């Protein structure tokens, strides 16, 4: 019984079906453990966590320089910015907006620097459904290559105060 002291000699190797099950379970666990590094090197979508220390002031300054250099338009007062293919782009998360709108080219690779200037935010790209954590003090570098054209939404999926649901942005790919 589980509620009484076990009989003497309980410390023994398992046998029968129990032994077989433990063997199968262990083998499956080993396969899954090996699959983790395999998927990382074989797969095309990873979160590398590349990040650099940055203060809110420094980051806003970089965003402003980036917007001034590559702005190509404006929508609802938000600048649309088209960085040269293969270059660095900047995206600022703050209560409650994503700034600016990025315009990217299909098949080109960009290093997108994302940081928050206030609370923690969550970068949620729709309808692709790709999600990354955005923290104040961390310049989070997402190396991405758009593989389809269109207009994508960015929403915030980390609670950031009562205007959380108002925090949306855009990425355009052509």
């Amino acid at each position, binding site marked *: 019984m589980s*509620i009484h002291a076990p009989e003497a000699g309980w410390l023994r190797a398992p046998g029968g079906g129990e032994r077989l099950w433990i063997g199968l379970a262990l083998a499956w666990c080993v396969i899954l453990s090996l699959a983790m590094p395999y998927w*990382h090197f074989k797969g095309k979508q990873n979160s590398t966590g590349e990040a650099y220390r940055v203060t809110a002031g420094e980051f806003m300054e970089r965003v402003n320089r980036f917007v001034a250099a590559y702005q190509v338009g404006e929508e609802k007062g938000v600048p649309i910015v088209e960085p040269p293919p293969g270059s660095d782009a900047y995206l600022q998360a703050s209560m409650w907006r994503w700034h600016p709108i990025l315009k990217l080219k299909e098949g080109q690779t960009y290093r997108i620097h994302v940081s928050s200037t206030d609370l923690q935010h969550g970068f949620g790209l729709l309808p692709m459904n790709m999600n990354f954590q955005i923290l104040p*003090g961390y310049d989070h570098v997402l190396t991405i290559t758009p593989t389809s054209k269109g207009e994508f939404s960015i*929403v915030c999926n980390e609670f950031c105060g009562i205007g959380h649901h108002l925090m949306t942005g855009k990425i355009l790919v052509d």
Partner: protein
Amino acid sequence: MSTISAGVGATPIPIPVDSRPVKGNHPPGMSRTCDTTGLPVCLTAERFIKLNAVAAVVFLLVGAVAALLLALTRWPAVHLLDTVWYYRILTAHGLNMLIFWIIFMEIGILYFACTSLLGSRLAAKGFVVASFALMLSGALLTNWAVFFTGKADVLLTSYVPLQAHPAFYAGILLFAVGALLGVIAFFTTLYVAKRDRTYEGSVPLVTFGATAAAIIAVVTILHGAIALIPAFTWSLGWTGVPDAGWYRIAWWGLGHQSQQINVTAMVSVWYLLGTLSVGAKPLNQAVCRGAFVLYILFINLASAHHILVDPGVGASWKIWNTSYAMYLAVLASLIHGFTVPASVEVAMRKKGHRKGLFGWLFKAPWKNPGFSAFFLSLLIFGFIGGITGVTLGTQQINIIAHNTLRIPGHFHATVVGGTSLAFMGLCYYVVPLIFRREYPMRWLARLQPYLFGGGILLLSMGMSFAGSYGVPRRHWDVEFSGAQFAAGFDAGAHLMLGILGVGGVIAFLGLLVFILQTVWAVFLGQKIENRPMTPW
């Protein structure tokens, strides 16, 4: 001196065996013998098990009302609460369910496992009293901060630099110190029972599992202190703002690890309910105990799953923490997932239910809510909670799941359909055996685990599938109405959110039946004196 055998085929190793007689250490008049199980009951432990159970159910009620309001807000066709109250109620729901209800129950379980099962008195009574007082005042203080200051809408995680009223952190810290004192009383009692030789040989399996839970609890509480003390001093203006990334790592050492206390306590309760309901006996205790040891050693690594798409921790850290030892904790769950139902099968076959492969399962006491809650908990935890958990812990899949409703879809299957349902099953024995009262309207109690388990299953599936469209968790309005740039989801996601809502309402009804029945039984139920409880 005598010897015990150390394994199959091994030469017996001489182990010195204590030959003093076994006897209880209860002071006169401070114990009774249970008329149903024959186990000794320490009256001090009994009083504090009662107090913990009552407090647990009161906080469960607060959390349950919050749960209903949240389900009716996430159901887009209803969208009940306004934005401020949605986040306030969400904060209260997480705290009252995940911390207060569950940990009050767990401290009660520890007191039971170290006294009745070992034939011992509860030691360190001062700690036990202080533990309950601190836990209760901490839980009340945090609830006060959430509901009455209007400055603690920070959700359970209180991610810095989101700042709460100091009373929010102070309450959680008081509660944690209280829980730690309860755990210390548990360890002290283990020592006193061993010293006084109140039992012979090794501790029973349920006590062993409870010990594993208590060890994980100590590690968890230390992580909680590392995360929350700097947040508390910062909220008072004494120190600077803690680093956001560092806070997350420390907080999840508390947040995920506390779920491992729940898993370990729940598995112990499975073994206990298996014994109480069908007389189940583990096939090989070395296997069951070894699996508990795997939990202690490796389960804390699951905390890393919350950091998989964070900046600041590199790819090799992520690969390391998602691969190697995480699977040794999964192995432990796979082992319990075999040994628990196997012990039920063996017990049922011994009773003569031998027809076919699954005859034992069909003949199981499905009308006994202690059994059905336990077995449904096993199924929901294993098949929904466990599989989703392992999936979400994959580095790549985490990118499409992080901060979406898939995450609460997973943990409502583990901690609600698993732990809470198992603890409800436990109450169907705690009330007759410890409070010595019968449940009223037994047909309703028989129905309750199915109602609650079914509701949680729907809720969890609705959440998981909505999350697979990218619907965020902890989000008041997935229509994003009023936002500068339109965003939203298609009809499929809305259907899933509707299923979430319906499941939430059904689960709430199941929970309400449980709470009303239990409160009625405790205060007005038929008394059980000098006779065994009426079998379920």
